[in-house]
């Protein structure tokens, strides 16, 4: 039972790094093959291309959630014979996924803007690591940063439900904003 919090912390870190890498790979493929112009010259609303990419990041991250749950169960069986705490095992990674929607939107936006993926990766890695500490801050302003939502939405923290709603709200807002800015952008 004592390993659980550190497992949660670690899996959360890798989850956020996963978002960074996924966004970078998705946008990077288009940058590398110079396919943006091809894609944007199709009769599709420009913003929907951004939203479709975002949706795929979300779907793939839901798969990560499933894998995490299975992995946690295996670890649980290996180290203890206590009954499985299903609720925490499933809801914990799921909440992380929901509350990282703003970060997905931000990462995808950065990855589409810069053809060199080093910068978006750096931002994502920095954000993922700092998310481990942001939630421990007492400052409400720091809590409002999208990177602190995943930690604040943990079931082990009181009042996590409000943070899930906040992240969903901010996430939707950033997605719409991202789609709008993507549509206005001029691609090389």
């Amino acid at each position, binding site marked *: 039972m004592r390993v659980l919090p550190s497992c949660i912390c670690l899996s959360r870190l890798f989850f956020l790094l996963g978002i960074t890498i996924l966004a970078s790979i998705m946008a990077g*493929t288009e940058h590398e*093959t*110079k*396919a*943006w*112009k*091809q*894609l*944007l*010259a*199709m*009769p*599709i*609303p420009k913003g929907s291309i951004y939203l479709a990419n975002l949706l795929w990041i979300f779907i793939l991250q839901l798969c990560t959630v499933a894998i995490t749950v299975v992995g946690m169960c295996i670890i649980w069986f290996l180290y203890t014979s206590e009954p499985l705490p299903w609720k925490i095992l499933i809801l914990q990674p799921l909440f992380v996924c929901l509350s990282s929607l703003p970060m997905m939107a931000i990462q995808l936006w950065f990855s589409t803007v810069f053809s060199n993926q080093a910068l978006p990766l750096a931002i994502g890695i920095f954000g993922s690591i700092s998310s481990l500490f942001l939630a421990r801050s007492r400052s409400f302003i720091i809590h409002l940063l999208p990177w602190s939502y995943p930690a604040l939405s943990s079931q082990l923290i009181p009042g996590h439900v409000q943070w899930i709603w906040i992240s969903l709200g901010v996430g939707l807002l950033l997605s719409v904003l991202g789609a709008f800015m993507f549509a206005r952008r*001029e*691609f090389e």
Partner: protein
Amino acid sequence: MTDYAIDTHQLTRRFGQRETVKRIDLKVPKREIYGFLGPNGAGKTTTIRMLLGLIRASSGDIRILGKDLNKNRMEILKDVGSLVESPSYYAHLSGYKNLKIVTLMHGIPESRINEVLQWVRLEQAAHRPVKGYSLGMKQRLGIAMALITKPKLLILDEPTNGLDPSGIQEIRELITRLPRDFDITVLLSSHLLSEIEQVATYVGIINHGELIFQGPLQELTERSRPYVWMEIDRPMEAAAALNDNGWDAEPDAATGQLRTSVTGRKESAEMIRYLVGRRHDVYRVTEKKKTLEEIFLELTGQEQSL
């Protein structure tokens, strides 16, 4: 006029202070092959990007197939196929799968894929990954991707870039067939006149962002009519005398020669007799015909820089 496939009005694009495209009135008649010519960096690609809505115009209007691009972008793009600069493809996928992506996005039947693969002669290589394709094959795949949607307007930016002579020939044959067989209007950009000369029926020449010539190809070829050049002493005086006699003649101070558009054998003889009679020494008489290449260079003012 709805008879134009592309009709722009005072189309301008600024990058910061610099105007890369200056008040262009591009008129591309339907069912023609329009050669869009200009040296590198003249604004061809910028114009084409604006036509596709990839970048915004700083000012001016674009009408494509009779519709305003700003208002009906989606509708227009359904009827437009394009290949801008280098073709875009996913190298790890086969040519067939690359085409399938396009059919999925446009919602057109998959059976079209084999049809266009045949047009560009890629049936043999269809199921190999694109990264193993030669440059010519990639270019042909790009054209297939542009054609698969049965467009009414095809925009090709330097489609023969990097192709070998036989590849160029193949693409050329394919392009010439399009208006006739499929009712497609083609806008073809190139920096090589020789390229355009053989396929285009209509020509627009752009230089430093300005459209300096637009019209049927014949109009351009007419400018290549022959002139008779005479090397003569006192060319100014001789030209004036010829003009007085009703002949068209122009002195060329730089070379000390005289140029006339009168090329008939009899007339030439008569002119020479007349000039000799006026005690001019005629050293040499030659007929010169300007090549289209020379006209192009003259129009684009690139003679000096070469």
